[in-house]
Every structure is written in C-alpha cells, then in structure tokens.
C-alpha cells in the first residue's frame, strides 16, 4: 500500500487552488500553501493578503527585480498587482482575526476530527518554536483549509482523534487536503469528499487516525 502513488506537494496545492472562489481575499501560509498561487485556474482572480501588511500581493520578484522592502511573510521578495495596498501589521491581523478574509490556507502537523489544528511546534524539537500569525489566522478565517501530507514520514496518521502536538487553534479547520484525499470537517465528523486516484476508502481509513465517512463512493480527485 505505501508504494501506491500519492499526490505530489504541487498537486495538493493545485487541488487546494480549486477551492478558492473568484474574487476571494486569501491568505496563504508556509509550506504547501505557498505553492497555491502558481496553480490558480485561469478564470479565477483572487487577492492575496500578507500578514506584514499587503493586500494584492502578486507573483514572486524575478532576479534583478527584488526590493527587500517588499517581501511576503516568508521574507521572499514579491511584486504587487494593480490596486494593491499597504497597511500596518495590526490592520493586517484585524483582517485575519476579524473574519475579513474569505479563505486562509495553512500547513499542518496534525488535525483532529473536531478540526483542532497543530502547526507551529513539534514536541521535543530544538529551539523556541514560533507562532507567527498562525493562531490569529486560525481563529478568524471564514474558511480554513489545511494542506499537508496524509501521514508523517514514519507513516503515522496526521489526521487524529486528538492532537498530541502543541495546538494552534480549536475547531478551526473546515477542510483538509492531503496527498490522499479531500476531507471536510463536519459537526458529525470527518467527511471524505474526494480520494486520490487508485486508493480505496478502506485503505485511506487505515492511514487515518479518526473515522472517515463518505456519501457513497468518494469520487477521485480530478484536476481541471
């Protein structure tokens, strides 16, 4: 079973990009979410928010074009789209916390069946760890999508009954997109919406630490 093909990180990002409605204000976190901007469908225009006070962030700066006063949350030089704006960090997080962003996409270490998220510190890891904007974003986004691999490198489920890693937020995740499926967090539990090609629900369940339900057979993930 571990030999079966899974979605690549790029494909997870591509599938997540399909969740963004036209015209949405969107914040993308570190890791896989940061790849999403490269996969936007042609007919969809979204406005990217950055926690350091940018709305209307464009593509990454090309060599020679970099301006280090214009960087994203990962310190990467970026560009602006026409109609972009700057504001200070408090207003940037007023947008994250206050329910002004339509969608936020974060990376994750663990997500519980209740939608609790752990994404800022690995227990026992060296160093201070860092929260950054994750807790504000988790608490306030209208819709929170988490993109991550379905299992750890050692094969342990990252979708669990209860998170054992330090928490970022409680009951904040709406949708989980992994290399094996698209799963919605519902009050009644985890609902498998789509599954990676070639995988069965039973196989997926074995790699998931909490019960999955689905309406009949979950369709395979397809890319438009």
């Amino acid at each position, binding site marked *: 079973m571990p030999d079966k093909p899974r979605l690549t990180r790029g494909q997870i990002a591509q599938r997540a990009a399909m969740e963004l409605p036209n015209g949405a204000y969107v914040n993308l976190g570190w890791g896989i979410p940061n790849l999403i901007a490269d996969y936007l469908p042609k007919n969809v225009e979204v406005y990217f928010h950055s926690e350091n006070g940018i709305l209307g962030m464009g593509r990454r700066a090309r060599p020679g074009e970099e301006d280090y006063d214009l960087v994203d949350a990962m310190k990467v030089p970026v560009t602006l789209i026409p109609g972009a704006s700057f504001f200070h960090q408090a207003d940037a997080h007023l947008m994250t916390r206050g329910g002004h962003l339509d969608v936020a996409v974060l990376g994750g270490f663990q997500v519980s069946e209740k939608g609790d998220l752990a994404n800022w510190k690995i227990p026992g890891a060296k160093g*201070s760890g860092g929260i950054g904007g994750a807790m504000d974003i988790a608490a306030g986004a209208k819709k929170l999508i988490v993109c991550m691999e379905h299992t750890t490198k050692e094969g342990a489920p990252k979708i669990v009954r209860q998170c054992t890693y330090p928490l970022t937020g409680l009951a904040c995740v709406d949708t989980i997109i992994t290399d094996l499926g698209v799963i919605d967090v519902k009050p009644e539990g985890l609902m498998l919406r789509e599954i990676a090609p070639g995988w069965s629900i039973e196989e997926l369940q074995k790699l998931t630490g909490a019960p999955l339900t689905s309406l009949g057979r979950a369709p395979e993930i397809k890319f438009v």
Partner: protein
Amino acid sequence: MRHKIHASLDSAVADIPDGARIMFGGFGGAGFPNNLIQALALKGTKDITAISNNCGTHDGELGLMFKNGQIRHVIASFPGPHSTYFQEQLATKKVTLELVPQGILCERMRAAAAGLCAFYTTVGVGTEVAGGKEERVIGGKRCILEMPIHADYALIKAETADELGNLTYRLAARNFNPIMAMAATATIVEVDEIVPAGSIKPEQVVTPAIFVHRIVQAKGVRYAG
C-alpha cells in the same frame, strides 16, 4: 516648534538606561531600525526587555544585541530559525521568552497605546499561550484575557519624517513600526530623509507627529543599512 531632530544616532539613544523595555520595529528583513540598533549596541545598554516580532537573523537586526548579551527578556511572536544567538541563550536560560500570537502582539501594543486596560480574544484559547490567563465565555465563544504591552522606548524605521515627526513608510517596511510608535513613552525613529514641515501631504501621513519624540536621519550617515 518642538525640537525632535537629533544630530546623531548616539545622541538619540544616549539616555536609554539598563533594564529598559524597548520595542523594535521590522518584519522579514524590512523596516528594522538597524542603525539605532547599532548605536544601542555600541552604547552597551544591558538587561533589556525586547519587544519585537523576531529575534534577529544571525548577526543582523536584533542578532547583534543578543550576541553582545544585552537582552534579558523577549516578547516576540516568531523568534525565527536564524536567530542563532537568541536560540543559544534561550537554551542556556540566559534569556527568557514570552511567545505571543502575532496579531495579539499588535493588539496588546495597541491597547497600551489606546489606554485600554485589557481585552478578550478567541486567539490562543486551548493552546499554550492561554496558560495562566483568565478565560470566560462571551457571545458563546471561549475567550482569554490579554493585557496591554507598553514600552519605555520604541526604536523604529520610517522612510521620511518631516521636522515635526510626521512619518511615511516605504512599501511593506511599515509593518510593526506605526503600532510601536504609538505604544512607547519615547519613540525614536531613524529615517532616510527629513523634510520641512508641510512637505508631506496631511492625508498621506501614516504616523502623526504626536507619536514621535526623536528623529534621526540615518541613511548613509554612519552605519550600513
């Protein structure tokens, strides 16, 4: 006119005593008061409580002050994987850390600036940052009580100041600077350029002069940056 312009970086930081609580602006390499940090490093002020988003990048930004052993306590949201000196000193307990969600760091400073005594938020409920904080349910949501963060000094970076202390910022180098300017007893700004009063259009002022106490033109003066 109030005279806020200092001729040198050294004079702008001359009275900062050991044990001061100091806010430092900047995020992601942009908008750090690197010249004021150099001046404070040279002065050798010790036992500082530093309030900043992160803790430097190797020798850069606040890294220099950690390298010099000048900082004792940190309030930050994302110390950063490249905050080498800070991480070493945290591991050996030479510095202590209060980790705060980034937006809550902003709001706690803004609460101090606004004369608010505290506020409730859903951010951090059920996580490590809720430890020891009062919790109550408001509007059906679990919330924790967060206290203001005030500082004796804010060291910030802006692009342009007029003689009165009205400030504008360049691109995303704005970040924490305008918030910190409002939350400290004495705000010291380093700028690329000082212009006559009236040169900045009133509707384009980002930080009004009332929040700015000392101005120093730093670009190309003495230190790099």
